[in-house]
């Protein structure tokens, strides 16, 4: 695997860690609650077609935690500033889970910098009677077992012990997730009212065995975002980019290429 270029960028007074690789149209990936501490195979695969940009959100990983960080809207505005500061235009924005929530909040505010939007099992809305799982009561083992559909993959992930540094980053990420998403739990009560503003081509991806964000949320998002497409991965949990890397990369690539024409 090629090494991504790593740099720190200071935007809105916050120093964030950014990894980049590949050439082509920009693809900005917004990670989920577990952060993006590593350059993963799906990033590498997408970097064959796009300039893939993977920041660690303010409050996550090696990025700073700014005083202004209170809610997801703060991160939506931050990434609008981020794209402007880096001179990114016609961005293909891909957000997963908590990152999908940020991406949706960003798009309802200002979609001018966007070419396409891809939401992967996003948080952000609430459907009555359909509770997401309580991630804050899961132990690490329960989290891993619940996030992926394939038990063998869970075993493999569990067999890799965390270093002290990794544990520290997990604690830091968890605090930020709580700050952003504890109450209301994993949603913004006002977001659903404005999702109709999104007019850039939008793809929604979901694993059919997602135990965290119920797959029934997929059609709800699709209803709220005009013209959006929903693709469901079979035998797949909350992390399609990890569990079904090839299908995920192919779906995202095809969608962006289709949107170009």
């Amino acid at each position, binding site marked *: 695997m090629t090494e991504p270029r790593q740099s720190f960028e200071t935007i809105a007074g916050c120093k964030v860690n950014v990894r980049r690789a590949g050439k082509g149209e920009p693809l900005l990936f917004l990670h989920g609650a577990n952060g993006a501490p590593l350059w993963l195979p799906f990033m590498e695969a997408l970097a064959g077609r796009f300039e893939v940009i993977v920041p660690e959100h303010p409050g996550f990983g090696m990025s700073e935690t700014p005083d202004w960080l209170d809610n997801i809207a703060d991160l939506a505005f931050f990434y609008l500033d981020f794209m402007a500061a880096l001179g990114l235009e016609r961005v293909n924005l891909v957000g997963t889970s908590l990152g999908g929530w940020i991406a949706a909040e960003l798009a309802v505010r200002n979609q001018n910098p966007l070419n396409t939007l891809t939401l992967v099992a996003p948080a952000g809305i609430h459907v009555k009677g359909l509770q997401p799982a309580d991630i804050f009561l*899961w132990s690490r083992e329960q989290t891993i077992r619940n996030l992926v559909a394939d038990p063998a993959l869970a075993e493999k992930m569990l067999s890799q012990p965390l270093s002290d540094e990794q544990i520290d980053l997990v*604690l830091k990420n968890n605090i930020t997730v709580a700050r952003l998403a*504890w109450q209301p739990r994993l949603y913004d009560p006002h977001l659903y009212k404005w999702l109709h503003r999104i007019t850039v081509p939008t793809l929604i991806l979901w694993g059919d065995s997602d135990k965290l964000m119920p797959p029934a949320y997929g059609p709800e998002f699709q209803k709220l975002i005009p013209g959006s497409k929903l693709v469901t991965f079979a035998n797949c949990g909350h992390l399609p980019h990890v569990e079904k890397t090839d299908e995920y990369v192919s779906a995202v690539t095809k969608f962006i290429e289709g949107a170009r024409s």
Partner: protein
Amino acid sequence: MKFYCFHLMPYADLDLDYHKKYDSAWVTLPNSYYDPKKGHILYNRYLDELEYAEEVGFDGICVNEHHSNAYGLMPIPGVMAGALARRTKRVKIAVLGRALPLLNNPLTVAEEFAMIDVITGGRLVAGFVRGIGAEYHSWGVNPAESHDRFHEAHDLIVRGWTETGPFPFEGKYYHFNYVNVWPRPYQQPHPPIWIPSQGSRETIEWAADPARKYTYLQTFSPVSALARYMQMYREEAEKRGYTASPMQLGWAVPTYVAETDAEAYREAKPHVENFFNRFLRMPPEMLLPPGYLSLASMKGVMKAKGAISGSDKTIDDLMKVGMFMCGGVDTIVQKFEEYQKQIGFGYLLTALQFGTLPHELAKKNMKIFGEKVIPRLRHLAEEPAPRARAV
């Protein structure tokens, strides 16, 4: 020294086999485990016990706030304080406390505490806490905002008690155009404020500040932690240019005293083990939600492996570390005297009913403690220990 009788009012009739189906007596244990008819008897029994504490010589009695569990059945502690306000005549009533970040409107605490203070003619002690981590799960309150909300709510309440209203309060979490607390508290400028804590440098620095000098209570901790945090408080006070009085330091500890060591051990054993292993049982994710502790404190806790392990404790484990004080009269007097001299606390808050301890044993415990232990410890901590001032 001053002596307070501390009560949690647990649901002592809890089916102790619940743990075969549920991992905690908090948050997710169905309330079908609670029988209100048994609860009726327990509440009245526990109020009798706290009233009895006045009879046997305690200086104060303590109630406190907990939610959605079998461990402590005083979700609205002011109800109990109100009942006790009229049935007691002499003792202080310490509400330890209200959990400020859990409340939507902290001014309700300013009112509730002022009411009790006025009814009792100034017998209220105002306790402020952040609540147990589990309660952030039950109450849907963001643990990452816990510290900030606590400080802001505290400022609002103390200003509401001490400044002439109406005045505006402009906070991040609480904003009012007209803060105007009626009734005003009986004790002026405000009732004494106590800060119960499991121990953190941030809390101690804040409580020890000369603008506050709040009494810091170390709750349900090993003696080694008690000594460390009390020393930390005294050092913080010296750094800030004054010597902390023993009355700024208190220790809350479950205690059982009988005529002999053997009798105390035998009588207390099942009940104190139930207290720690059943009523306090919870997984670490429930106890320490993210943000409840600062990142630095959380790292420390994670590295001290075993500190929050789920393994059951025996009475011997608990006595060894001083999380449970148990013995005959002479043993108990000697241990408390030794710890007081070493550690210098001025308040002792003994929980004399714990877990499943039945009424007769709780009363016997209280009677012996009140009549035979308190008189022999009373003289301690009358003067602050002489200490060289930092130049």
